[in-house]
């Protein structure tokens, strides 16, 4: 499943980069994150509870940051495994400065879902991934604004 889009952050690129570069922040941007553990500067793991209506699942998550070109671009690798399935995603993000202290993020990536949840819930992936992406970016933007405040 391909996932791509754009998002405008209400803050300068350096600030957005700092947040993106902080896997702990990234993990927290995943809706439902319970715990975060640092493995290295560019790798974090954590536990995420995904809740969508009656569906609820706990996933062991991992985020790895690579191919960094600060403060412009990087690659994110995200993994999640749980009793009801697993997810693997690789995405490239690229940021450009906009006028008025804003930042445009372009992202494009590919996600693969497997296991039980993939086998019976495929109808909803696209909607779920889009909405989780939006929630995550909104959260990131929220951090940005609260840091600025």
């Amino acid at each position, binding site marked *: 499943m391909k996932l791509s889009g754009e998002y405008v952050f209400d803050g300068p690129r350096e600030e957005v980069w700092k947040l993106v570069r902080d896997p702990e922040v990234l993990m927290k941007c995943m809706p439902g994150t319970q715990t975060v553990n640092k493995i290295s500067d560019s790798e974090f793991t954590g536990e995420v509870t995904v809740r969508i209506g009656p*569906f609820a699942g706990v996933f062991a998550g991992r985020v790895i940051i690579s191919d960094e070109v600060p403060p412009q671009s990087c690659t994110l690798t995200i993994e999640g495994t749980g009793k009801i399935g697993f997810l693997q995603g690789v995405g490239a993000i690229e940021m450009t400065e906009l006028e008025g202290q804003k930042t445009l993020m372009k992202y494009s990536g590919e996600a693969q879902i497997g296991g039980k949840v993939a086998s019976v819930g495929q109808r909803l*992936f696209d*909607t779920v991934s889009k909405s989780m992406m939006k929630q995550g970016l909104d959260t990131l933007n929220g951090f940005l604004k609260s840091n600025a405040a």
Partner: protein
Amino acid sequence: MKPAPFAYYAPTTLDEALSLLSEHGYDAKVLAGGQSLVPMMNFRIAQPAVLVDINNISDLAYINAEEGGVRVGALTRHHQSETSPVMARHAPLIYSTMPKIAYPQVRTRGTFGGSLSHADPSAELPTLTTTLDAKFRLVSQRGERWVSASEFFIGLYTTALEPDEILVEGFVPELPPRSGWSLQEVNRRKHDFALAGVAAVLTLDESGICQDARLVFLSVGDRPMYAERASNLLKGQTLTPEAIRAATELATTEEIDPGDDIHATADFRRHLAKTLCQRAIEQAHQRAQGKQ
């Protein structure tokens, strides 16, 4: 495929049910018809710790005609709506759609309130109630409130309901005179979830000009997609083919957000939405003119 264990309550009054929800919060799920919840439980992709079965609460199943519309209780089974003369008279869009929803054995169990609360973006009732500008009464121990359908549906399986609230009834306004309606869908098999669909209601003035219009799409977003701008575009217009095309174009290029799945690409869904939107407006227009 057997469900995980859960604690089961079968309250006989609404107060008891609300108290249970208040106590258990996110851990609890309301069991109404169960036609969407129980399959998820059998697959074990839903494992609620507590089920509050509201089927034993009396007085929640009714379809009553009222001034300006029809009041529908949350436990009204689809089969009741399908066979209700009151529904046929006051909410023909809902009435005529009921036979399309799932299968006969599901309609005997599936409920009005359950379908709305589940908020599947491909289900018909959320779309129809949004189209008809219905409102819902949500009750908790903290009190009650009325929420319009367009504010109720927030996202995928996500509504304005708090964990301690139950949708107890809906009020579906009756369409004024010179109104027409239509639901157009494309389904793989007749009773599957639509690949794309749209409901339209129109009201004409005495000279035949469109006074009011609402276009709402299903299966092309994370909730019923109300094409507000396209609907507004129709208002004040004579519904010429050009006007219909323009509204369709606006709605299906800017006001829906279709996704890919194994049955259809976003591209095809958009194409279907466009075809169906035009057909829906045309059919609603015909009906408004008393031609059908």
